[in-house]
């Protein structure tokens, strides 16, 4: 009884209204509240619609990404992802209409038109994505009409992205805005059709640290080709070929489930969820893809690949597992699919997961997460730093997986940190990625630098 109370007290939120956004692991728990709007006045780790749309579309390499608003939105999203390109580097430039007071008062459409015209003249891009921001949305600039007119004037794709920040503080809404924009690009126009092939599309994959390329190699070995990845290392022309795939595999479901469902509706392309984070997940995903093609040669190649890679990495992972067994880990990431993948990987490394949270998880996803954790673990939606700090210390966490804002917090608390954010530079996918991830977790968890924390020049202060 007492212990129960202690545990309950331990889960107290710092803000009473947030109590329902925190739960514990194990099955059959009361439902967690999520997808609520953040409280006004809270220090949220969440962002906005614009942010969500920008991260999904940014890796389209040869498009110009034009942010229609005051300068900040463009500056903060300039080359923010570790998405690699095999060709054009256009996406790594930052274009802004740089709205001024005059534009806010008299409308920014004219300036937007001028920017588009100038960009077309200078760069001749195959497409321009025009992102709405808070202000352009607020004053009612009609970016749809401007884009449509510019499209026909220049005979290129000018695609509006309705991503005004105030629409929601939840990035998922921005993923949808990006998805709508992608569909606009993909759906063939003027009666054109795209020939079906045996290739697949890889949705929700952003080529961080070359991850798309790695999976592409695996698939090639199995005898399967990628038609186009959404959106890692993609080009406008390649995206337009999307209807030609016979299968859509979906990794980041948060950003791409809707696109997959629409591609099925429009082009009768079936889709399946995959997950290439962790060796087990990778093997499982490759087998399911092989099963879809149901070809004896593909089966044989797939099994040969998995056996070879597993044999190769098993001893390496074992070495890390020895060092990491029993260490306590926390996870705070954007989407739930990523959280689930990291939980699996950390478990494969023998670690105990004592805290898991996301910015944008859905109820069913939180059920899955809770099911994977034991009863003492904390599950939290839209955590604020105070809550994270409280649980990180209370749960004596050794290492945390999260994004840029969590990194500084974890380090300040003397806790190791591994980057699993959309701006990371390392390839964490596939069999090689599993090794890289284990290495990163090991380096930060077992760094000799933590020993220095225990030394002090002024013992009386402790």
């Amino acid at each position: 009884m007492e212990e129960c109370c202690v545990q309950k007290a331990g889960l107290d939120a710092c803000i009473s209204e947030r109590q329902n956004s925190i739960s514990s692991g194990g099955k059959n728990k009361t439902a967690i509240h999520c997808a609520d709007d953040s409280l006004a006045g809270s220090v949220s780790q969440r962002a906005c619609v614009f942010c969500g749309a920008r991260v999904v579309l940014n890796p389209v390499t040869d498009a110009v990404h034009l942010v229609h608003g005051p300068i900040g939105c463009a500056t903060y999203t300039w080359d923010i992802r570790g998405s690699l390109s095999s060709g054009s580097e256009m996406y790594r430039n930052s274009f802004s209409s740089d709205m001024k007071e005059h534009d806010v008062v008299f409308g920014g459409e004219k300036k937007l038109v001028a920017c588009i015209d100038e960009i077309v003249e200078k760069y001749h891009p195959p497409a321009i994505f025009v992102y709405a921001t808070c202000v352009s949305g607020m004053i009612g600039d009609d970016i749809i009409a401007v884009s449509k007119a510019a499209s026909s004037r220049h005979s290129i794709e000018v695609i509006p992205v309705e991503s005004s920040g105030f629409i929601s503080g939840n990035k998922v809404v921005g993923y949808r805005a990006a998805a709508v924009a992608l569909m606009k690009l993909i759906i063939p126009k003027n009666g054109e059709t795209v020939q079906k092939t045996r290739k697949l599309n890889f949705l929700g994959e952003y080529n961080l640290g070359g991850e798309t390329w790695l999976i592409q190699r695996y698939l090639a070995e199995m005898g399967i080709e990628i038609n186009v990845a959404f959106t890692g290392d993609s080009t406008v022309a390649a995206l337009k070929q999307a209807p030609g795939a016979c299968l859509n595999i979906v990794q980041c479901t948060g950003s791409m489930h809707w696109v997959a469902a629409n591609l099925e509706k429009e082009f009768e392309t079936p889709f399946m969820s995959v997950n290439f984070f962790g060796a087990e997940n990778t093997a499982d995903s490759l087998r399911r893809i092989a099963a879809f093609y149901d070809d004896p040669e593909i089966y044989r190649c797939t099994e040969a690949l998995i056996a070879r890679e597993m044999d190769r990495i098993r001893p390496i992972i074992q070495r890390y597992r020895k060092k990491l067994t029993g260490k306590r880990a926390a996870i705070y990431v954007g989407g739930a699919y990523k959280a689930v993948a990291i939980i699996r990987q950390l478990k494969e490394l023998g670690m105990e997961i004592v805290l898991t949270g996301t910015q944008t998880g859905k109820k069913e996803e939180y059920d899955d997460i809770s099911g994977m954790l034991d009863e003492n673990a904390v599950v939290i939606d839209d955590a604020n730093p105070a809550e994270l700090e409280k649980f990180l210390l209370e749960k004596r966490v050794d290492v945390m997986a999260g994004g840029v804002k969590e990194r500084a917090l974890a380090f300040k608390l003397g806790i190791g940190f591994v980057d699993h954010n959309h701006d990371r530079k390392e390839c964490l996918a596939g069999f090689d990625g599993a090794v890289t991830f284990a290495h990163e977790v090991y380096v930060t968890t077992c760094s000799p630098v933590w020993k220095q924390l225990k030394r002090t020049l002024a013992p009386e202060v402790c």
Partner: protein
Amino acid sequence: MLECVPEGASGHTTGKINPAKTCQPIGAMYAALGIHGCLPHSHGSQGCCAYHRMHLTRHFRDPVLASSSSFTEGTSVFGGAANLKTSIKNVFQIYNPEIMAVHTTCLSETIGDDIPNILKQAEIPEGKIVIHVNTPSYQGSHITGFSGMVKAMVSYLAQSDGGEKKDQLNVIPGFVNPGDMREIHRIVSELGVKLIMFPDTSDVLDSPLTSKYEMYPEGGATIAEIRDSANSSATIALGAFASNDAADLLQEKFGVTGIPLKLPIGLKATDDFLMAIKDWFGVTVPKSLAVERGQVIDTLIDTHFHYQGKTVAIFGDPDHVIALTEFALTMGMVPKYILTGTPGKQFDVEIQKLLKDARIEGSKVKAEGDLFELHQWIKEEKVDLIIGTTYGKYIARAEDIPLVRVGFPVIDRAVHPLMPVVGYRGCLRLIEQISNALLERRDRDCLDEDYELIL
């Protein structure tokens, strides 16, 4: 990378490509972090707050806390008053800062939220303070926002006690790193003058690791100090763009003499800073500082042949760029392209004067420019060195020119925020960085027979 700017002298006339500035609110947020026990508050959409915190965290590699009014679609229709009032209630109840520093965003400005009026109606707990500044992102830059928040500190907090002016000095340090602010502290204390510096982010964003996370670290100018700034005998405003407005207000409201100076980056600007204090307070410059100055001159002489006559492009925030240009001239370098993203005619005037005094002709100078433009200039005629923020790295790679990182943001190298570029020690650091960058290039480029052990 090579395609980032098309060939040819085309220029562009509208919008920005690869900006050399960012928006006002982040400057206001940074300034507010320099008040002890302060929680900055962003009155707008959540994304702004998240971006600013992330950007500051990337530069300082320390946690940055700020709350947001978390606007939704409804807020945007009905106005942000209710959100701000709720925020004030929540912030003091949950995070319990001594002071909350509200800045607006382009969204709340466009809606037209009347912040002073909302603050009047808000329930602010006894003994707690809320200050505000309007920071519409469609005007000025992050430097304007910084300046505005510092001015708000004066207008809300400074209070004359009616007596004689005290024998103490206000310094407004400008948008510089905590390492710079720490160095300014040290210099003034060596001169034996009592200092009130605000904002002051030393011990806030360069705080030591103790395994205990302090939401409000030890550092920051206290409210009592900022209040007392009205009683100081003088204010030194370092950098016109970031600091003059607050100093002017102190002079106008309380008769505190304002002394506008450049950021003390480089030998001359540091001399000017020390002499201003010496002259105003009648103190003598201690031997320790004279020794430091002597070391700078000694080093300049030891190394001048490494950089003299080299051409350099300097970009970044206006106060930094003006002072860096002056120091580059002191070093005998040729500032060929000088650019800031922040608007302001004064920039051109100041730089032109420096160039004219040094008899340098044909340099290109621009305020409110962007890095597309800088890149085009460099494509037309190359320089030997670029001095600027991390964003210069694309040009540096495309054109194969060494880059010395100074200013905000530096998000691809660590330790910067702790190492001062101000004062005489800052001179040594800049000389080291600049000459090493050029020598590394020489070692890399030269033929085997020219590869020297001793340089």
